[in-house]
């Protein structure tokens, strides 16, 4: 049951991440990358198999968890964190340099205005 829940969670996180990465604005793309890294971190973690009451200390209990995936996932978390920080700064820089937050930096003012009007009707 836990296995199923965790696999579904990895699937949902990765799926949502892929969807967001394919969006046209930089912020959803950054969020998508973050969600994908959550998905993969969870995936790495479960690669040591899911145990209960099994610390990563050999001999402490009858069954011990594999410490390596835990070490891997820590490394991956740190790297993903640094990368997210970097890509956010880059997205902000692109927003400042290009004047809009489209991933290609192509700004179609007309289309934006139509979208804005549809989303936020003027009072």
């Amino acid at each position, binding site marked *: 049951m836990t296995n199923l829940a965790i696999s579904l969670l990895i699937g949902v996180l990765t799926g949502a991440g892929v969807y967001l990465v394919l969006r046209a604005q930089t912020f959803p793309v950054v969020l998508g*990358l973050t969600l994908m890294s959550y998905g993969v*971190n969870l995936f790495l973690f479960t690669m040591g198999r899911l145990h209960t009451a099994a610390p990563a200390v050999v001999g402490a209990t009858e069954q011990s968890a594999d410490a*390596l995936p835990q070490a891997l996932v820590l490394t991956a978390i740190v790297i993903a964190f640094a990368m997210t920080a970097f890509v956010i700064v880059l997205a902000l820089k692109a927003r400042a340099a290009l004047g809009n937050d489209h991933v290609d930096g192509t700004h179609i003012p007309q289309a934006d205005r139509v979208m804005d009007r549809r989303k936020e009707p003027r009072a």
Partner: protein
Amino acid sequence: MTDNLISLLVLLPVALAAILAMTGQRAPGLSRGISLAGVAALLAMSLGLLLGGSGNTAQVIELGGWSAPFGIVLVFDRLSGLMVVLTSIVAMLALLYAVRRDEDSAGPHFHALFQAQLFGLNGAFLTGDLFNLFVFFEVLLLASYGLLLHGNGRKRTRAGFHYVVVNLIGSTLFLFAVGALYGTVGSLNLADISLKLPEVAPDAVPIVTTAIFLLFVVFLIKGAAFPLYLWLPGAYGHASIPVAALFAIMTKVGLYSVLRVDSVMLSGNSIGGLVETTALIAPWLLWLGLITLLLAALGVVAGRILRRQVAYLIVASVGTILIALGLVTGSERELAISGALYYWIHTTVLSAGFFLLAGLLMRHRPEAGDGIEAAPPMPHAVLVGSLFFAYAIAMAGLPPLTGFFGKVMILAAAVESPLMAPIFAVVLISGLIMVIALARTGSRLFYQSQATPGHPAHSTPRDARTPMPGLALSIAPLAIATVMVVGAQPLSEWLETTAVQITTPSGYLDAVMPDGILLPETAPGKFGQDYPDYEGGKH
């Protein structure tokens, strides 16, 4: 002693990066000196190791004294040694150019990022461990993000964002592949995985196969193969010149990983006795290489600025190398790999030099930069034009320069292949397309010089004595290419023994895992059936 030198190849750049991050803007002259001395030391050490015969048998450094499957190893053999030498040569060219043309002061921390990039590159070439390869990929990518954005620019920022996002997705896929391999095979050491793959439980075979393919997808993103090369022309075409020149080695990291993982990790005969590994990846490489080469040739035609054309020439060289790596049947494999390595050296050094030449055009044609359009004649037009001509000949693969010999060696290996006809057709036709495109570029840039008030088109170029720093640096790669032509015989013999070392991975496996596979006493089952536990292992 040699062990220490090999470790230094990785440790020296990271130590210098830390020092340079401190000296940085405060002492620009000192930073330049440290950075140049570091790269010169790397070049001397790697050349010394390689020529001293250190790589003739794979040399293993166990970090922290932990032996192979438990600790992380660095492996120095001829292939990784050659890659480190190439990295140092390209880095030397790029760094000298940056210093000569004052490009390093366009933004903060150029030298620190440059050394961090070398740390990642050398680490990726020397590591014998998949997760460590991931970490070094991240190191070199993070440094490359910084370098790519060095010196501002709107187009550079946009191209940089694409490059970063594509590579972050690649890193995520890499982690999925590494995780799935560890979860089923129970190891991350390349040699250890190779020994354990035939023992994988039958029900884990589909997962292992998927993970392996995923791994190669990641390598081909880094290596810029069809359909995953679209990030490259934008990123390389908009980077500052020394950075673009250094990036000439970056696609080779992907290709190196393809070659290393295919030849070592997949050297067992099968995955769990069900899936053959000898021809698992290679046919894909061959077809992707053919498509990449053809599309890249068309990209060269379409390029409007010289840097973009050079970027597409790099993609074309990736295609050519992939074709060679995809040739598997029979004894031609050694010939194909040695041809690929010859072409590999040629394309890395010359595309770096071609970028430097494009940089000279950018600086000395104020009206048009390196855009392929008519402009008033630039200073030293005859010399620069001749250099362009030589580069175009070499890159398009015409005799008498290196590109021709590399292609001949690869085609000679393809004669026995069942796909000989398409390979010959694609290689020759794409070569023709590139010749036409580069001839057009050359005539636009150097013949159709345009008159401007005060500068009639066909008078002597203005300021014929204008100093042009960095000109010698764009000649140096051609000198290397000439040496490669003159010394083609000994070089290709050396590369053939290298290819034999690559195709007979038992040397690598014995060096890394002298005791063979270490079976955990507590897990009598096959790998993947149960989670292998190393309680009873040797440590």
